[in-house]
């Protein structure tokens, strides 16, 4: 149907191009040429074919006359004819009667098949490689994610430990602050003094207790020569003879190669003054002997 109409158009165009159409036909063709692109292209194709036909010398004599008399009236068409003649000569020199030379247009079927198979194989391999790479990458991502979670846990644990240590450090600092005055006094609220019997209070060598703030207890180590008594009794007296404190049933202690009687007194009993400690020993038979007198002074109370 379409081919038949096209053939009719070709015949009409040939007459139109050779100036053989009536005015009515001419107007109808021209009106359609102005509004229909395909129709216009068809005219150009007919014009080209007519020119080529003339150039190849294939046109019948009556048409030749019309072609020369009407068609070639414009310089552009004469130029087109000269070109068509050159093209025709070129085509006859480089003859190609078959629609397409093998090699440039469609390739031989066997080659096509081989090429197609090769393309399919390459495609399959490429897809396989892509899938494998994808899996590997996914595994790597999972591994990295797990490592990151572990690292985050470790970091959280270390943070907790650091916080605990910080708390402990704070406590220790508070404790240290509380104990600092005591530390400065010797590390405790106890002040000790080693006393040797027999030294008078007038002597320059009289031991002195410096009762700084924070000292609550005083320990006196009373050196003894004879530690054979089963128990001892100590009595603290002021220089004026007033008894301040006493304690019975005391036992000897060994500090290094010395034997001592160790007594601990509340610091509040002592004021800034001179004191003496009377030490007596009780044998296993119940007899009591005077062991010695120990002098000391108290300062800064």
């Amino acid at each position, binding site marked *: 149907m379409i081919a038949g109409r096209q053939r009719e158009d070709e015949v009409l165009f040939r007459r139109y191009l050779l100036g053989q159409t009536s005015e009515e036909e001419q107007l109808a063709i021209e009106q359609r040429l102005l509004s229909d692109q395909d129709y216009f292209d068809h*005219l150009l194709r007919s014009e080209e074919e007519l020119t080529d036909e003339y150039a190849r010398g294939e046109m019948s004599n009556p048409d030749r006359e019309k072609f020369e008399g009407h068609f070639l009236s*414009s310089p552009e068409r004469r130029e087109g004819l000269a*070109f068509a003649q050159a093209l025709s000569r070129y085509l006859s020199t480089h003859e190609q009667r078959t629609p397409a030379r093998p090699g*440039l247009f469609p390739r031989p079927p066997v080659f096509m098949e081989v090429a197609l198979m090769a393309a399919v194989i390459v495609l399959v391999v490429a897809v396989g490689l892509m899938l494998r790479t994808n899996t590997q990458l996914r595994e790597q991502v999972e591994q990295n994610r797990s490592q990151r979670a572990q690292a985050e846990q470790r970091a959280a644990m270390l943070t907790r430990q650091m916080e605990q240590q910080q708390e402990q450090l704070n406590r220790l600092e508070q404790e240290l602050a509380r104990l600092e005055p005591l530390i400065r006094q010797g590390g405790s609220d106890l002040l000790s003094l080693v006393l040797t019997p027999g030294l008078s209070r007038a002597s320059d060598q009289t031991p002195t207790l410096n009762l700084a703030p924070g000292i609550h207890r005083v320990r006196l180590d009373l050196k003894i020569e004879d530690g054979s008594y089963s128990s001892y009794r100590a009595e603290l007296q002021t220089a004026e003879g007033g008894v301040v404190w006493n304690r019975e049933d005391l036992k000897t202690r060994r500090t290094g190669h010395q034997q001592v009687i160790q007594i601990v007194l509340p610091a509040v009993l002592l004021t800034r003054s001179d004191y003496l400690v009377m030490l007596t020993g009780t044998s296993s038979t119940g007899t009591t002997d005077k062991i010695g007198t120990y002098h000391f002074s108290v300062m800064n109370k």
Partner: protein
Amino acid sequence: MNRSARTRREKDLTPETFGHLLDWLDRDRDRAGQRYEQIRLRLIKIFECRGCTAAEELADETINRVAEKTQQIAGSYVGDPASYFCGVAHKVYQEQARKVTSHLTTLPADMAEKKEPLQEEAEFRYRCMEQCMERISIRNRELILAYYGAANDPQGKIAGRKELSQRLGIGANALWIRTHRIREGLKKCVAMCLEQKQAGHPGEIE
């Protein structure tokens, strides 16, 4: 819109008149410009088909007359403006035919006398054709050879071109458009080559 159209508009039409024409062709200026060029090209071809030697001038005269009427008719005209152009073109042609009694030209009378120079020119042209064919891609050259070099008899030609369009997987019209474009390119190349040869620079095409 191309430069020639603009130059022509400035020369023959006022900007207002030309603007009215474009508005009538299409509200969108780009599309109107394309439509204008399309109509002009087809008018030239129509005058050429009627055997007019000055087809381009007559096409421009037609456009000018339509443009001058545009303001009057734009509001009331119904249908494709192309039809109006067609009517005006016919009138322009009739006027021209009355002015020039021998508007249909025959082949130049001195053509036979110019046979020698024409032969020489044809030889030049053929050499240019060979050069230009070398300049296009192998694929395009093969297409030209296959399309235009098909069998000489009409039936063989039709069968050959049909087979070619099937092999390329395109329709007959698309195949012609493709080859026609290559041919137009070759035509320009050959024309340029000839100009250079005539200017005394044979063998060089820029």
